[in-house]
């Protein structure tokens, strides 16, 4: 590697620096009237690209029942060990096993999506929800109801159109 000397010969007018300063001021002035890139959260939300790994949801089957069969594959695959559940005999004739309770500790969840990869039933999925901060730690321990609600508000892909009241987020 050699050193390359670059010299800039200023013209006499440049040595006053005033034109340079003025052109700088022109640029900043132009930017003042340009379109702003700020997203005015929470009135506006940044729509995430497809495949975004946000909050977790539990899917429902055609009859609106939880799709999960409580095989614990997600809990086994989870590197943060944030999923826990208790399996039980399903109250439906055509299903054998279902989760009596299902809990995800979103405080621990690292949103890696391994649960989604592991699930043999496509019952657990990561969604586009990224704004799920809460005021208490307890609110981030999500039970089955909460996870199914996440499905309801994201299943039609219109999560970002919904109001705060509707999503509960």
């Amino acid at each position: 590697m050699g050193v390359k000397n670059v010299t800039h010969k200023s013209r006499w007018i440049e040595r006053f620096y005033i034109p340079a300063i003025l052109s700088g001021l022109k640029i900043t002035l132009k930017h003042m009237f340009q379109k702003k890139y700020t997203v005015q959260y929470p009135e506006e939300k940044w729509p995430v690209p497809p495949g975004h790994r946000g909050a977790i949801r539990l899917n429902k089957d055609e009859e609106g029942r939880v799709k999960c069969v409580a095989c614990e594959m997600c809990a086994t695959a989870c590197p943060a060990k944030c999923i826990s559940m208790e399996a039980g005999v399903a109250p439906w004739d055509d299903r054998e096993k279902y989760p009596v309770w299902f809990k995800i500790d979103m405080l621990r969840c690292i949103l890696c999506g391994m649960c989604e990869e592991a699930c043999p039933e496509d019952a657990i999925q990561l969604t586009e929800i990224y704004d799920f901060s809460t005021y208490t730690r307890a609110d981030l321990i999500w039970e089955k109801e909460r996870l199914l609600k996440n499905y309801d508000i994201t299943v039609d892909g219109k999560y970002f159109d919904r109001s705060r009241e509707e999503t509960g987020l």
Partner: protein
Amino acid sequence: MEQAGYAFVDILIVLAKVIVVIGINLLMVMILTLGERRIAGFIQDRYGPNRVGPQGMLQPVADGVKFFFKEEVIPSKAEKVIYVLAPALVLGPALLTFAVIPFGGPLSVVGKEIQLQIAELNVGILYIFALLSLSVYGLVLGGWASNSKYPLMGGLRSAAQMVSYEISMGLAVIGIIMITGSLRLSDVVMHQNELLFGFLPHWNIFLQPLGFIIFIVAAYAETNRVPFDLPEAEPELVGGYHTEYSSMKFASFMMGEYIALITSSALMTTLYFGGWDFPYVDESSLGIWGVLLSIIAFAVKTGFFLFLYLWVRWTLPRFRYDQLMGLGWKVMIPLALFNIIITGVVMSLL
């Protein structure tokens, strides 16, 4: 008897002017704190603070409330008396400077002519320079009294910087004194209240362009603004001379700085842009409306220079310290001397 009544009314008028000027100054400080951040936002393609009140207008109020409730921390090894005094030494001179600046045409009420200027001093320009020299004490003492290395360095820098640029600033203004022949600021304004060659306003900017450039550069250095804000260069000195200050003391420093901005903008207007003169209009013939027009003209011009301060801040990078001193001593002072010579030559020729 009449004398006493006359004096009493006079005092009342002066008092009213003082209150109005200080009030407007403080209001402007609030607007500036918000403006600084909003303009920064706009220049950087974002919005800036726009949440508190409509378009963030109540943000300064929120900031003020916050400052009042902040914990007051005084370093245990600080020189307490000077430490407490320093913010006042910055704020006081900054406010006092405005006293000699005429902010509108003379107003006649019930046959009484009231100058829209708190004190019509015959040595107004000297008074301003005297107070400018004073204001550096606040910064140096604040930096020194904190008993901490960064504030001390900030204070030293500001002292050196101010001393250096005061010279070129003073020399630049001599050109104007030569043209006007008076140190009285109202004379300076009145002198500009005419037309040059029949079509140009008789503003000093057209007579003293070089002087104005020197003056504005020196003013930026004197007010510690970008690109000469080395005393508070945050990458090097944390916060500069006010590193150890908190709560309202810190706020006083900031207010002092912003009032200095307003004063220097007003000074630029007065010295080079005709003061309250609205070009092509004879304000004295319009009575009360003329006075109003002159105040508006003054406000608009001053406002433009304030905006320029903010605009420049988010455009130019900061100088290196040696560049700063080099510019001050090796460029500005010779140029200012050159300016005086040119002015003298031209005046003797005319």
